[in-house]
């Protein structure tokens, strides 16, 4: 473990998991870099139509 700790977290992947991790880390008091391979975030979930069981729009 480093002596001088850096208050930033790198999140790799901008799908639902990465986005949630980024939000929680940022709310927890850390600078977050969110890396996404493609041109925009959203991942697989943004391709889903509706989600079980509420039939909420996946967006």
């Amino acid at each position, binding site marked *: 473990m480093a002596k001088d700790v850096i*208050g930033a977290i*790198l999140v790799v992947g901008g*799908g*639902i998991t990465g986005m949630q*991790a980024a939000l*929680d880390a940022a709310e927890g008091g850390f600078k*977050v870099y969110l890396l996404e391979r493609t041109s925009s975030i959203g991942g697989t979930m943004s391709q889903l*139509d509706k989600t*079980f069981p509420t039939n909420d729009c996946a967006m």
Partner: protein
Amino acid sequence: MEVGRHPNIELLTLAELLTVEGEPGDLRARVLRHPRYVDTQACIACGVCAEKCPKKVDDEYQMGLAKRKAAYIKFSQAVPLKYAIDPDHCIYLQKGKCRACEKLCPTGAIRLDEKPSEIELRVGAVVLALGSRPYDPAQEDDYHYVSQPNVVTSLEFERMLSATGPNMGHLVKPSDGIEPAKVAWIQCVGSRSQHPGAASYCSSACCTIAIKQAMLAREHAHGRLDAAIFYIDMRTQGKNAERYFNRAQDQGVRFIKSRVGSLTPEPGGHALRLRYTLPPGDLKEEVFDLVVLSVGSGTGPEQRKLSASLGLRMDSHGFPEFSAFAPVVTSRPGVFAGGCFRGPKDIPTSVNNASAAAGLAAGLLASARNTLVSRPRAAALREVAGEPARIGVFVCHCGSNIAGVVDCPRVAAHAARLPGVAHVEEYRFACSQDAQAQMARVVQEKGLNRVVVAACTPRTHEPLFQQTLETAGLNKYLFEMANIRNQCSWVHGDDPEAATAKAESLVAMAVGKAGLLEPLNESDMPVNRAALVVGGGLAGMAASLSLAKQGYVVHLVERSNVLGGHALGLGQTGSGEDVRENLEGMIRLVTRDRLVRVHLGASIIKAEGFVGNFHTTINSPLGEEVLEHGVTIIACGAGELRPEGYLYGKSPRVLTNLELDRRLGDEDPQLLEANRVVFLQCVGSRIPERPYCSKVCCIQSVRNALRLKEANPQAQVFVVNRDLRTYGLREDIYREARAEDIHFIRYDHEQPFTVEETTDALELGFQDWVLSRRLSIRADLLVLATAIVPETPNPLAQLYKVPQDDDGFFQEAHPKLRPVDFATDGVFVCGLARAPQSMEESVSQAQAAAARAAAILNRPSLKVGGVVARIKKSACVGCGVCVACCPYQAITQDQDGKAEVNPVTCKGCGTCVASCRSGAPDLPGFSNASLLAQIEALVRP
């Protein structure tokens, strides 16, 4: 959207992590940034580049079912909403000619000379959420996926159902555009398979996805659609999934437990013939119009490459190795992993993994918390009370998005004639940085005291404009929006005249309302930085440890006299880890942590307060004590069903799985002598009184069957089940058990299961589903896989004002996106209290709850007030209707019986206003006067 706007999240798209060096706490990440070829500062997402781009390519967002251009955005709500140029297809970048986009871009945002670049980021920790890659059925094409257009994957079918899909949500066969009458789903394509390239594990979510798709497809066809799902085991083990399965059966979706033997195209190429077998051996043939392959999820080259570069230890399936007691921790310190990258799972489990990883990373870096983040400063606000309304109206063109349909100059001219309007301006993009600066300047120069923006939706843009108001020294509640994009240019795109007239009316209404707006104050309320965790089992301890690591004081309240909960009686996890050993390690950590105050033998007798300031009174052997805390985590667990019948409690040969676990731990000699053991699944689960699946019992039974077999290799072991639900990577132990000659028999649960005791054994009788006849087994031991049952009603529900669902488990705020939050702020749930789940899931959820709770504890203060209801006490008759109606339990009655609103818990929904017959409640900004002003503005000629 929330991610895109968060001040402390820097979004780097088209970026690839190459390497990570350094030690945990101080890591250097090398990142390759691929060019977008578009300047994101200058791009206004007008879409001209895509419109003019001559190159059409398959749209991967639509799973190749539609085309996009080489200049593109993935979808219309993309974040960032900036176009990109696909270098693999751009004619200029490939062949050196074209540059049409560059010539036509109105803001000169195209940068075709951009080159890839490398940057280095200094971070303390890394969270990997690389996702998964769906199985490609073309590689072992048993189902003619490549040649038959009417054979599609489940992800392609999602796009076909979607309103933003290639057919705008109109479900048709790809071969001829005609609506299908019969659709079949084939489960486990590429999962639970020994084919080369396929996964041997179960992909966990596909059964529930297929049910959802079948129900939606039937809805699209107004019920005139025959939907049939072919499956091996129906694995609806997730929360509420079994109810969904039952509902689908009731609505007429056919569930056929059979592997499809062959699929052959019918002559003409528009239909497909499936052959399958039904018990006791009948060969069936059926023709379908469309076949959906429920493809599994796995890892692709991008996941494998990065894992190798980071040096993560991987399992045999290509997922990072992990322990059930540290489910998001990888073999490399400082690197965490979650979601489908870490193994197949559903959305809520992924979301929990994400929060858990964020929380653990925060724990690792606790000493540097809040060192690199910015918080907006509060500006001094101008007093506007007593001034006549001076309203500024700002009309946004949104490029051509609004102005292409709505005559914006006419809307602006109309607004200028409205009473109270002092100034009108038009912007090409009101949300752009320069427009915002101009708006703030105008507000100050012209002395405006109310602002109306006619643009898009307040859902996404209100906070931005409100921030601008504050910069200009105005209270942010002196703001109103008219949505002339969604409600005018989008929906009336074919009728510009009507769209413009409607935009004029919407602006007039907003102006009418704005004139009556008053400044609202928010006050700061301090947050107590301690947490209360209720329940000292696995989940409670995991939550406490994560919070303590992040530096917060935790009160851990346990009803019994020991920590550990039900897990104390368990032998091994699904993957064979020793539970007792790991649990004892956790208990040691909890008892030694100076920030965790353990209260044993303690019950909660009273709870008061709300987010930020709870006061909970506990009663323990040390007497009564009031605990002050800012957040509450409910981790009270659930119990094991005491079964009725099956000679349970009457014969020593009948025991529950939990009892077996304990006796295996004690190396009970009676178990070694048992030569024939039968496990009976779903005792008390998946029945009308308890329609949920208890999720862990299949895994526990298979694990215990293996342990018995190991202890006594001569033993014959049978697992009598309805569907064997060893979901996810747990499929490995099912395969192992079959290889060890453990017998799995499917029984018909609607026929009686009989248990009789003879002098030296049990006689068991049941209906075998495959053979369609009754079987009897003489057994030395019958193990009942009993249901997990929650405490109902649970006093904690009343104490902390949180709901329990129909099954008695606690009801989270949103089943997918907020799986550990309650609708009540500051209260969280995890572990068996939320739903039956594995230890690994409980730990991840507990750590997720800790991360969500820490976000509140990290705030310097909570904002109180703003749009919250007020009660005119003189009008209140104390009937209590609003108290009952309030969905947030924000209203109580004072000593005179009059209603009182707690501004912390009130969400400003207005339900109380609508419910009151005396007109006592009022919601500022939505008062009767302002609503009437809006209506008046609408009907005024």
